């Protein structure tokens, strides 16, 4: 277990550093998917294989693609030297990040978590699905939230299309009129 944890933690951290330090944004995006993959390994270790699958499906798959698409719309970033990445705020940023990390690590490890333990979640996908659909005891509100999630996704579609539509009168306006 410890070996697996060390491996996953190393993978997540190294990839995360790669995101910040790499000179090419494309490499940063790919490093990010490595980091996401490490997180999905953590989900497996925490007895949540369904979440691990979602992590791979949504984050490693879709979010990385969205980010790569996002990079496609930019000009070629003119980053040639590390000096542009490691700027004057480097030490300030480093100290803040380290401070927040140390603080969170201390607070979370000092807590008496009582009955909450890693691996308490529903290991079976079926149990997870029952919770998600609001069938199981104590999760009834998820019946409602499940449908709310679909409306949220619908609204996200509309918002995405609205924001990326063309300016009026510039080129062919998107739509049936074409």
């Amino acid at each position, binding site marked *: 277990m410890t070996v*697996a944890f060390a491996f996953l933690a190393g993978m997540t951290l190294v990839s995360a550093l790669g995101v910040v330090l790499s000179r090419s944004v494309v490499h940063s995006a790919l490093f990010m998917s490595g980091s996401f993959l490490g997180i999905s*390994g953590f989900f*497996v270790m925490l*007895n949540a*294989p*369904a979440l691990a*699958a*979602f992590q791979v*499906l*949504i984050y490693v*798959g*879709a*979010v990385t*693609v*969205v980010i790569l*698409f*996002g990079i*496609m*719309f*930019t*000009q*070629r970033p003119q980053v040639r030297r590390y000096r542009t990445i490691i700027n004057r705020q480097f030490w300030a940023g480093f100290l803040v990040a380290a401070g927040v990390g140390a603080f969170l690590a201390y607070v979370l490890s000092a807590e008496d978590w009582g009955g909450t333990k890693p691996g308490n979640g529903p*290991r079976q*996908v*079926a149990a*997870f*699905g*029952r919770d*998600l*659909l609001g*069938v199981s005891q104590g999760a009834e509100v998820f*019946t409602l939230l*499940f*449908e709310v*999630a*679909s*409306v949220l*996704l*619908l609204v*996200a*579609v*509309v918002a*995405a*299309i609205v924001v*990326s*539509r*063309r300016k009026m009168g510039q080129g062919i306006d*998107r*739509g*049936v009129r*074409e």
Partner: protein
Amino acid sequence: MALVLLQQGASYGTVYLYVGIFMLLVTGFVATTLVLARLISPGRRSSTKAQNYETGEITVTDPWRPFPVRYYVFALLFLVFDVEAAFLYPWAVIYKSLGVYGFVEMVIFVLILAVGLIYAWKKGALKWV
């Protein structure tokens, strides 16, 4: 492999241990091949070799050009429907035991998202121009 193990009732840890070993093997294989190829292959560089091969065109401008932002809609739609698909898996696993209730729940879910798809379609957001 992992599926067979699951059917044999192997423990959770064992199954994922196999998954982990499998992933390590795959990565290791690719890495070894690449490194070996680099080590074994003779490297004699010449200007002729660096040229474009046969009918390959020489690029005239920087290939990194900003794309029109409208293509972003494809990526975002992909993301949205990917999330929808993620919701379908746990539902499918327990579909039989849920009966009509689960069916209706998912029908409403899919119908609402279908409205989004219809909208995107009618607005031409699915058209790759």
